[in-house]
């Protein structure tokens, strides 16, 4: 029977992209219990529906998080469009899906760089972030901004993308795919990576279902909850979509799922570009939201399923806007994965969950 001590982890830590605090109850180098504490980045964004009308709230929604920025603006716009029965043109839907998949590539590349850095594999971290710069250049070419895109509005897109820009995007994506696949092979077949991640932080299929986990975190335990399969929004235009699942449920499985998703996203983005037809990219939406109108929307963000709910009250200002982000849903899974692990593995487990705490707290 060893002595129990409590070690604080965070809120500032080199592996954490965003501040979260964990109290680790440790007994002889094994973690017995982990108690999370969040709230360092709570900004009360859901209350800002009182000061920004529903057309301007999209600029608040996309600033919830820097990594999942486009996902939030897309989910918000789709929710309001559903509430007001707006039909967005086909071209806008396809461009939205294309940009969202490119945003997923950017998020996973950022995460892969952080994971490599957590191992001490700094050169891989630099190479992956160098590739990520190509993706940020694609964003600047098409929308004018690198991180905060500001291209979505209720009713479609704010500006159209010309054909020669689209062909430049296509060639950049194709060259990105070749370079990325070299790096992916290096990372996944490296024996030191395998020795630190195989068998660490295992969560079984039943445990994953009971804890309600979402995203690649759960897909590594063979729980298929990918919202892109449901055909909501622009995703019904995909020709065939097979979610990437893994059966191991450990850290290595989660890394493998995310690495493969990058290649899948590149393919989806290329499919959307090649199948674009001409047309308008927006419809005008005016007028107040009807009293009592409500809508629910789901979206598959890079970290998992995101839930949006909005309620109108007859004015131009929303009564309630709720964004339930995937990282909040994964907090219980994170606490369960940390139980019984070695103190040295805590870094790796928390990183493979891909926590996005600014989304969790808003």
């Amino acid at each position, binding site marked *: 029977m060893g002595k129990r001590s409590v070690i604080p982890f965070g809120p500032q830590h080199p592996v954490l992209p965003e501040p979260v605090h964990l109290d680790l109850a440790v007994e002889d180098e094994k973690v017995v219990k982990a108690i999370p504490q969040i709230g360092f980045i709570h900004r009360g964004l859901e209350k800002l529906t009182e000061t920004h009308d529903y057309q*301007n709230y999209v*600029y608040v929604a996309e600033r919830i998080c820097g990594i999942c920025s486009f996902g939030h603006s897309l989910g918000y716009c789709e929710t309001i469009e559903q509430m007001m029965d707006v039909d967005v043109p086909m071209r806008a839907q396809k461009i939205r899906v294309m940009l969202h998949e490119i945003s997923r590539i950017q998020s996973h590349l950022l995460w892969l760089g952080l994971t490599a850095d957590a191992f001490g594999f700094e050169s891989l971290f630099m190479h992956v972030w*160098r590739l990520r710069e190509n993706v940020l*250049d694609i964003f600047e070419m098409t929308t*004018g*901004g690198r991180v*905060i895109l500001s291209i979505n509005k209720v009713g479609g897109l*704010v*500006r159209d993308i010309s054909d020669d820009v689209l062909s430049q995007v296509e060639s950049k994506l194709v060259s990105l795919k070749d370079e990325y696949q070299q790096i992916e092979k290096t990372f996944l077949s*490296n024996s030191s990576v395998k020795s630190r991640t195989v068998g660490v932080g295992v969560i079984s299929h039943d445990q994953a279902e009971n804890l309600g986990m979402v995203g690649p975190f759960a897909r590594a335990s063979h729980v298929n909850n990918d919202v892109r399969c449901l055909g909501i929004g622009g995703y019904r235009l995909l020709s065939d979509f097979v979610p990437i699942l893994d059966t191991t449920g450990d850290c290595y499985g989660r890394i493998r799922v995310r690495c493969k998703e990058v290649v899948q996203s590149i393919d989806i983005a290329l499919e959307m570009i090649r199948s674009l037809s001409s047309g308008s990219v927006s419809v005008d939406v005016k007028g107040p939201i009807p009293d009592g109108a409500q809508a629910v929307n789901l979206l598959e963000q890079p970290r998992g399923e995101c839930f949006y709910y909005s309620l109108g009250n007859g004015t131009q200002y929303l009564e309630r806007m709720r964004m339930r982000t995937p990282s909040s849903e994964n907090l219980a899974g994170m606490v369960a994965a940390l139980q019984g692990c070695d103190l040295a593995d805590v870094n790796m487990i928390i990183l493979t969950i891909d926590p996005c705490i600014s989304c969790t707290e808003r």
Partner: protein
Amino acid sequence: MGMFELGGMTLKWLFHKPATKQYPQVQVPPYPGRRGHIENDIQTCILCSRCVKGCPADALEVDRKNRTWSINLYRCIQCENCVRVCPTHSLTMSEELAGPTTHISAIVHTKPEDTSKKKVSKNDSSKQS
């Protein structure tokens, strides 16, 4: 083997020129359409305040009495809402970013009085050129 592949990549980059640029000595040219900062052609501006109503970040101010239009570039979120609602297209988005500064203040443009033609009031029947 994974090690040889990364070794090959590392060796290639040993002789390649660096991927980073020495900013600010070397300026990186922006892609066309980048959202930098807002500029106003004050001669065509009619001071209608539609841009003020459309701004989500309260960065613009219009004073009709003193004929000024001002923008706080560091409150601006470069959303281009003002450019889209402007009826005379006097607002444009330039590609240069608002540079670093030691003092945050608003840029004020004053519209000069138009003395070439005077308003004809309904009671006054004589026209003036």
